[in-house]
């Protein structure tokens, strides 16, 4: 299978996973807040294929796809959202705050920007533990305005720590356009100012993402510290389920849907290949969903375990 086809398939897996979660949410099997990453799949897919086993990903609440791209089985993700015993955290994390360290996925975070300093800590550990770990943290454009993110970037820069900062710039923070919230829409400039090599890339192209992350990993591996990647993308779904997206200017969503990574790469590879990639993803996720739904709910009597050792 060509790399492009592999990427397309990996992106379809995420898309179908998210569609499935949406359906489960609307059906009431999944409850509470759910944040989908439809349209942004190329970043997780491009990045994760350049990460090694020893690397660690720290994502936001919009993290299902990152977990999947990192290798977490879809069944375990779905089971988590369905609060099953087989979920990665037995349902304690839920959609917005689960982790699966055995797959190098160190967790979502529902506090905007809070994962960045934690990723820096994982990189700090690497300085001493001989793991060769690179820590990758992903956050949104809006998170750039959370002070802790600047603190984290500066600490990583000052200490030459092996971190990759990935900013998924989807142009919105919830319902608010980033360009109304900053003077300088070039967010990578902030990393530059801290002395961090920074690039702005097309986040809807998995190959471009992979190239940038690959370089960042090499930079980190060689002790040259952090890299910042601003990946332009668009979410083609609401921020949360139920978000009517009235804040979008007329025509924007339609344009975004034409430029979304699955459409783009699908057109490039042709309908036949694209359909095959999609179908394989659908079959896999459907089977995973069935298994997840069949698993028993986590036993309520375990609710108070694991608070302390």
């Amino acid at each position, binding site marked *: 299978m060509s790399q492009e086809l592999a990427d397309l398939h990996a992106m379809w897996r995420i898309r179908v996973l998210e569609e499935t979660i949406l359906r489960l949410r609307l059906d009431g099997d*999944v*409850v*509470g*807040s759910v944040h989908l990453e439809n349209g942004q799949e190329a970043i997780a897919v491009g990045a994760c294929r350049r990460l090694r086993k020893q690397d660690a990903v720290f994502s936001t*609440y919009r993290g299902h796809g990152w977990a999947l791209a990192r290798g977490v089985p879809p069944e375990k993700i779905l089971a988590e959202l369905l*609060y099953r015993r087989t979920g990665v955290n*037995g*349902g*304690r*994390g*839920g*959609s*917005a*705050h689960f982790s699966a360290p055995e797959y190098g996925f160190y967790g979502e*975070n*529902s*506090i*905007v*920007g*809070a994962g960045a300093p934690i990723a820096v800590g994982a990189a700090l550990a690497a300085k001493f533990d001989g793991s060769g770990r690179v820590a990758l943290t992903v956050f949104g454009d*809006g*998170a750039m*305005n*959370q*002070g*802790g993110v600047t603190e984290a970037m500066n600490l990583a820069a000052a200490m030459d720590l092996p971190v990759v900062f990935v900013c998924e710039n989807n142009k919105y*923070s*919830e*319902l*608010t356009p980033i360009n*109304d*919230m*900053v003077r300088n829409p070039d967010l990578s400039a902030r990393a530059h100012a801290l002395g961090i090599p920074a690039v702005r890339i097309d986040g809807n192209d998995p190959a471009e993402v992979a190239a940038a992350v690959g370089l960042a990993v090499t930079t980190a591996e060689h002790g040259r510290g952090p890299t910042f990647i601003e990946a332009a993308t668009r979410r083609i779904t609401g921020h*949360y389920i139920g978000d009517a997206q*009235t*804040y979008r200017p007329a025509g924007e969503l339609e344009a975004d849907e034409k430029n979304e990574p699955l459409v783009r790469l699908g057109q490039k590879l042709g309908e036949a290949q694209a359909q095959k990639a999609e179908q394989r993803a659908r079959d896999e996720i459907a089977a995973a969903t069935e298994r997840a739904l069949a698993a028993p*709910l*986590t036993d*309520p*009597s*375990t*609710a*108070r375990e694991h*608070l302390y050792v």
Partner: protein
Amino acid sequence: MSETAKLTYGGAINAALARSLDQMPETLLFGEDVALPGGVFGVTRGLRKAYGERVFDTPISETAMLGAAVGAAIMGRRPIVEIMWADFMLVAFDQIVNQAANVRYVSEGRLSAPMTIRTQQGNAPGACAQHSQNLEALLLHVPGIRVAMPVQAQDAYDLTLSAVACDDPVVVIENRTLYAGAKAEVQIGGQIAPIGGHRLRRAGDDITVVTWGAITSSVEAAVDATGVSADVIEAVWLNPFDTEAVLASVRRTGRLLVVHEANLTGGFGAEVVARVTESGVPLKTPPKRVGAKDSRIPAAVQLAREVLPQTDEIAAALKAMTR
């Protein structure tokens, strides 16, 4: 001039904010997504349109937002800032505890910070540990900050206005599970009351139940289900807290139960128990608190239920104490 309107809890807050913006030209209203989008829960809908630039959206910068509120308040504005979830206060807690709370005292009264922080807290089905906490106790240990916690639409309206009109920092803690509930008759346009006071939700003779926040309805349900004759005192203002009202009730009933959704250890229930027992009011039975069992809050609904106080637990306590 007072009239009534049928309003949800969220609608009542919206009405109170509109009136504040209308009648107090020094008010400002800001926060993440509050202006053009009208708030992630729709509570501030229409206010930007009606009141223009005094209502604005901010970056995701709680420290800057709260600091800006302190600075604007010091200068005579009356900022109303929304922190979308109480959990998010913690990225910027310094601006509340070390800044806002100190303004009047440290300046020897030369400065004041008439600011209102609107936030909402608590668990809702499926919410993760970082979106479920009840944090009022942290604020209540901080002198210099007032705290209100409305549950009924009328209180949401009244307390919001009292908070905005207060010349000290007030945190109004709302609850997102209430925003879109049933509409109720709300008296609007009346006099703005000073801060303070409580609400007597049930009147009875055998036990005093002190509670606050959304769990008040579970307390009412438990009282109604058990038929226990209980004074149910809802502490809509937690600072100032109406200690006298609680003592007067316990003096009559001889029993005290405190119920809150917040984690038991170090919750404000302990303070209520301490004040009552220190007072020497005779008790027929030891006081009791019902709160969340010391734990983080799991997303899984069936697990969260084990941790958070439920109506049957409250009912059991009522029965055991009055047996």
